[in-house]
């Protein structure tokens, strides 16, 4: 398991009302990323963030980073405001597919092993806003054409329940798998974003299991939310047990790919935000090495969750582990990495 960050979260961010942080070049973003302990990968947004392949490769080599994925943005151009892969306008669909092809070319030139795409402008806002079957077939045809281009470069499709549309077309893990089935190409994968899964009403571990069972390749984005919106909060800060369960299944599946932070540090220090994701994820990952996973499997087979919770409790609660000294020695971060109280006071 390796940690990566979507580089766009290291620069200027915005929501509907406000703008946050400073605009940075891709070089500056990568340099910030290199300061975060444990991070070795960058997911870079194409075409808006990238430099030429030569310059990008030089940055990566100098900073000892790799590309986890090229993220092709087919929502930012105003022409895509009404849809990209599902647009009724063939010229717009063509432009979207061309952008995916260009992202594949770029991915190959910088040594990336995948392109990921989240078609967020495809969907609808109102009843009677779209012809669902036509829209779906447009998406299938576009994704097939994009998959067939440079077939050695896999295309991972990311699902999301909503935003920027009230309802996105590709809104669930099941829909992602249906898309893979309909397209019928082996070089298609799914990007599972934990936050999208949670606020879409899924259990991320269950969604992961469904995808893994299908044999479709998968790639992981981490964050968290309150179940109502894609807040892109730090991993495990709202739904810690769901995150532990997700990582358990990821470990059981033998996942050795990237875990990419899709976390939005709008009002806090970006480096500390991503450092938290890495620390928290690594800590849980280590717990899952230490814990008796045979016992967990045994109890899961019998649908006995209480004994599993009992196994997990010592990792969360000092009293359950024994002495606080032992807990501190084994699991607490070093004093230097403890969160500052300054944020809490100013907030």
């Amino acid at each position, binding site marked *: 398991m390796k940690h990566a960050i979507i580089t766009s979260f290291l620069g200027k961010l915005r*929501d509907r*009302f*406000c*703008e946050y942080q400073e605009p940075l070049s891709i070089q500056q973003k990568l340099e910030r990323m290199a300061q975060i302990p444990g991070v070795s990968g960058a997911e870079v947004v194409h075409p808006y963030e990238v430099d030429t392949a030569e310059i990008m490769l030089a940055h990566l080599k100098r900073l000892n980073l790799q590309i986890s994925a090229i993220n092709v943005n087919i929502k930012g151009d105003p022409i895509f405001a009404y849809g990209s892969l599902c647009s009724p306008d063939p010229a717009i669909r063509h432009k979207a597919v061309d952008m995916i092809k260009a992202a594949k070319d770029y991915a190959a030139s910088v040594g990336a092993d995948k392109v990921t795409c989240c078609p967020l402008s495809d969907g609808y*806002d109102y009843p009677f806003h779209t012809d669902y079957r036509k829209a779906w077939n447009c998406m299938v045809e576009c994704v097939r054409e994009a998959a067939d281009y440079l077939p050695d470069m896999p295309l991972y499709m990311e699902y999301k329940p909503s935003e920027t549309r009230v309802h996105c077309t590709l809104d669930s893990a099941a829909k992602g798998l249906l898309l893979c089935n309909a397209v019928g190409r082996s070089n298609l994968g799914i990007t599972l974003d934990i936050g999208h899964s949670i606020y879409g009403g899924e259990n991320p571990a269950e969604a992961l299991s469904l995808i893994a069972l299908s044999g479709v390749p998968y790639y992981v984005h981490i964050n968290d939310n309150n179940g*109502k919106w894609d*807040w892109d*909060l730090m991993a495990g800060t709202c739904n810690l047990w769901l995150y532990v369960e997700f990582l358990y299944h990821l470990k059981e599946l033998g996942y050795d790919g990237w875990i990419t932070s899709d976390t939005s540090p709008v009002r806090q220090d970006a480096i500390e935000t991503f450092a938290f994701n890495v620390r928290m994820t690594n800590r849980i990952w280590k717990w899952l090495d230490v814990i008796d996973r045979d016992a967990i499997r045994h109890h899961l087979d019998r649908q006995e969750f209480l004994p599993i919770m009992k196994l997990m409790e010592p990792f969360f609660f000092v009293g359950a582990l024994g002495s606080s000294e032992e807990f501190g020695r084994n699991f607490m971060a070093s004093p230097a990495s403890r969160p500052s109280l300054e944020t809490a006071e*100013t907030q």
Partner: protein
Amino acid sequence: MRQALIVAFLGIVRDRFTQLGEPLSIRKKLQNAAQIPGVEGAEIIFPDECHEPSEVLEALAETGLVPTAINVNLKGRPEFQRGALSVCDYQIRRMAIDQILKAKEFALRAGAERVTCAPLADGVDYALQQNHAGAWMRTVETLRTAIEDGPNIPLYLEHKPSDPRVRGLLSSSDIVLRLLHDVDRPGAGITFNVGHASLDGLSPAASLAQVLECGVPLYVHLCDAAGSWDWDVLPGSYHPWHLLEFLQALYGSGYDGWLTSDSFPLRQDSKMFSAAHIQRTAGALHTVEVAPDHRPDSNSISSGKDLEAWLSPKN
């Protein structure tokens, strides 16, 4: 009841990923609003749309639109990103007070009856991020100063569960009512947003009942929500029965103020979209006004048949 628009929505609108619409002057926005049949009033954002006060006043006079409210923006400035009314930093709270006072002064000049404020930057994103009791007390004190100082223009507070904070400080109309109770000053009211009160399928009429019981001054923003998010979609798009129930309760209360559109025309022609909002609301209002047997206290589901006329007028 008369209808108005938040005219900012006639210009550029955006979300996290998309920006659409045309950058229009406040004069042009007011002119466009005045061309929409049924629009009699305009809500104007302060200070964003009031940098040229004389232009606003002239355009209001030219169009004949009534300034229903001056909407003071306490979220857009970088200083307010972590809150405005509730933050620990007194200087920032003072900036918020000053901004409200300036909005009140402008409202006085423009002849607006009120200043309305949705303090959307106040709230939290994470657990352990804030001393909630302290934030509440600071908000109370800040609002007392903002209400007592400056011109005698009432300040209305708007509720919203979230956005841009994961959990907004004034997350519900009930919390605003509690805040007004604690502030305990005349010259304050509630801006009741029907969309914000419709999230997760909640009944805005049920929330309105508490507002009416408390008797606080009331101003209404109208739109609809979808699911758990404030999509600001056209009224009744997702919850048509709740719209009728709300309007029926509002009509029954004797409210004769403004219904201001908070519908957000992303991906739509803003004038056509706003016209659709006005027309739909007018139709719904007419339905509840002429429904003879449906009284707020009737507790009769059969009387809802009268309201079906709105959804199926030809049947």
